[in-house]
């Protein structure tokens, strides 16, 4: 087992000028489950492939433990790529399916059997070891495939979107299985996904990338509660955070007809480049429905309510504002979590206020967090 360190690791594809991964600094602890997440083209898969040895490192270095592996061949890095497209061999027993790579490597028979038995125990496959894959359920077959990587006892597991070609139901199941398995094995794991829900539910820590640059790294809670910039704020969380850029007057942001008071240190952090504006964000659950006229409250016109039983989300627009001025994610609407037992009708106007201490404030110019 080992730590993984990206030290100013940079990848520039031939024929391009902008690095696909730009000076990545990231230290992953021994036994940690780290998720690299971001939209397509952000550099997450490239970073993983740099660690795997599939991409050249054009600047900086990569270490596994204390060993600099920057120029080491993929097969000599003591890592295992876990694929989504494992096929099992029909004529071979489950044990042989798990251990055949060790047989190729010339590992003594007794040791293969021992390692396979250990892996099978962790994977709940002990009683199936001498059967053929045909006798297994879909989930068990998938665990056999995991077993192939486990018996090799690598220092690091690498997983690149391993759930992406499963259907929604199996995806959620497998997500939980992989996360709990990783915790039982305690092997350092780097996992790539574009899906922030997957990242939040699986990772010990999450690293968000965009345009080849590391935006923030932290625990799921840190990423959710204190996003370092507007991008992370909008990317992490589902439904997404409401974000809008507003004038600042007399120490308050002018949101529609409301004034949202700002802390002094936030105002002090503003620069000329911000042009007297700030970006304000708040999560759908950070709003209270309040009586009209409550100070700091603003009006939202209901467009649609999505009822989920335990929750209900109102999609609406800011009254007295410009369409899309304040919105969540890719939509041009803002989202409010409301009491599912008290749902307004379409067209109805409600009055909401941000809960104390739950507003996120970012520089309008740089997008960096000020609050």
């Amino acid at each position, binding site marked *: 087992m080992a730590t993984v360190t990206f030290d100013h690791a940079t990848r520039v594809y031939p024929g391009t000028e902008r690095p696909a991964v730009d000076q990545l600094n990231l230290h992953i602890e021994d036994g940690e489950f780290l998720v690299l997440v971001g939209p397509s083209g952000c550099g997450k898969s490239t970073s993983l492939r740099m660690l*795997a040895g*599939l991409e050249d490192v054009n600047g900086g270095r990569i270490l596994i433990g204390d060993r600099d592996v920057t120029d080491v061949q993929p097969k000599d890095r003591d890592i295992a790529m876990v694929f989504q*497209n494992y096929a099992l061999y*029909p004529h071979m027993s489950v044990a042989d399916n798990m251990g055949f790579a060790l*047989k190729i490597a010339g590992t003594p028979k007794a040791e293969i059997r021992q390692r396979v038995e250990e892996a099978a125990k962790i994977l709940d496959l002990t009683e199936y070891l001498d059967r053929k894959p045909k006798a297994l359920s879909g989930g068990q077959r998938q665990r056999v495939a995991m077993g192939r990587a486990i018996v090799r006892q690598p220092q690091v597991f690498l997983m690149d979107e391993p759930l992406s*070609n499963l259907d929604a139901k199996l995806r959620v199941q497998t997500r939980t299985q992989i996360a709990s398995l990783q915790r039982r094995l305690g092997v350092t794991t780097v996992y790539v996904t574009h899906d922030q829900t997957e990242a939040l539910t699986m990772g010990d820590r999450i690293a968000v990338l965009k345009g080849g640059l590391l935006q923030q790294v932290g625990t799921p809670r840190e990423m959710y509660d204190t996003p370092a910039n507007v991008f992370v704020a909008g990317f992490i969380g589902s439904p997404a955070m409401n974000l809008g850029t507003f004038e600042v007057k007399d120490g308050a942001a002018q949101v529609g007809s409301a004034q949202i008071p700002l802390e002094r240190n936030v105002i002090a952090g503003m620069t000329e480049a911000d042009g007297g504006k700030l970006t304000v964000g708040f999560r759908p659950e950070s709003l209270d429905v309040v009586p009209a006229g409550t100070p700091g409250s603003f009006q939202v016109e209901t467009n649609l309510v999505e009822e989920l039983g335990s929750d209900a989300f109102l999609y609406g627009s800011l009254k007295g504002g410009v369409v899309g001025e304040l919105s969540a994610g890719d939509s041009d609407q803002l989202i409010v979590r409301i009491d599912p037992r008290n749902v307004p009708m379409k067209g109805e106007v409600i009055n909401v206020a941000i809960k104390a201490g739950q507003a996120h404030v970012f520089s309008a110019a740089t997008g960096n967090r000020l609050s």
Partner: protein
Amino acid sequence: MESSLQITAATPEAALLDLPWRTPLEEWPAEVLAALPRGISRHTVRFVRLGSRVFAVKETRDHYAFREYELLRRLGKLEVPCVVPVAVVTGRADDDGEPLESAIVTEHLSFSLPYRSVFSQSLRPDTATRLIDALAVLLVRLHLIGFYWGDVSLSNTLFRRDADRFAAYLVDAETGDLHRELTPGQRAYDLDLARTNIIGELFDLEAGELLDEDVDAIAIGDALVSRYDELWRALTDVESFSADERWRVDERIRRLNDLGFDVGELAIVTDFDGATVQIQPKVVDAGHHSRRLLRLTGLDVQDNQARRLLNDLDSWRAHADRLNDSEQLVAHDWLVHSFEPTIAAVPRSLRKKLEPAQLFHEILDHRWFLSQNEGRDIPMPEAAVSYVDQVLQHRPDEAMISKDDDEDHDLLLG
């Protein structure tokens, strides 16, 4: 909600609409299926017969189906031997409106042999070597154009006879990626994965008692690695020599031609005093012989078949004492007076057993064998008649190898 079936295809295939898209592929009725052997895949794959053509249908998620469709099209444009994508079918739902997985449809490669049937036919002792050679050539060609396969295996490859060798075709591009250029790490990893997968597949054949006991699976996997390295070096290495050895430039090009490659661009660098010359092929294209034969005769065949036919064309030319005539003219006459009559001498009903160029190659072999035995020159028509009688009619039809009874090898993972 009623979803609507969508078929995305470069050339519309109206017949595809007749397939039972509202049924999961696993449950398609036998009457639409073609009984062809399937490789090991984590997806459901079936072959279907539409009119005279056979298609492979694979269920996968729509994003992957479109991606693979696009990749196969690009590989086809780059003239890499691979299956031809036909369509992507999305928006499937069963009769209760439950959504079904999307599907990618590819055209079945006729005269292709899946590795299981090649191995189980135990053609010749060196069959494995020839298969591995073919796969090494395919992998080198893919790597030269920047394609990282990500899951090289015998199951993801089909083989076609190519004169006395095999030609390998890529059938599954799901895990692949086309790059501007591959890094040494990508090549090394792809090759290592190929070795592991091939040995695994041979272990599996061994376990199923479908493989001769004497076959050494690990040695075959290792042979792929050394064949690949050898070929890669021959195609890309820098070669240095002194300036008075200029013949080595031509020599290098000839060597590449012999390997079946044309040199599109050769970098030649001399040092400052001009005493040493360095050469390195920059652009090489496979298909040297097939391109030449196509240009001369219009016959579109695989490279080793083309090499064989060109050799015969050369000896025919010498024999006919026409070394001073234009090559095109002689080639046309050879086609009309030798190639076509030889193929025509094979009864139509037996002709579909092998591709015409493969038939011609085998008849050439047979003629050599007869000539050796009888100590005289045997004319082609006579050789053709004897070949049909003694060899061809006893051979299986290879246009579409039918399914073996090894039913359980299309195991699914998820």
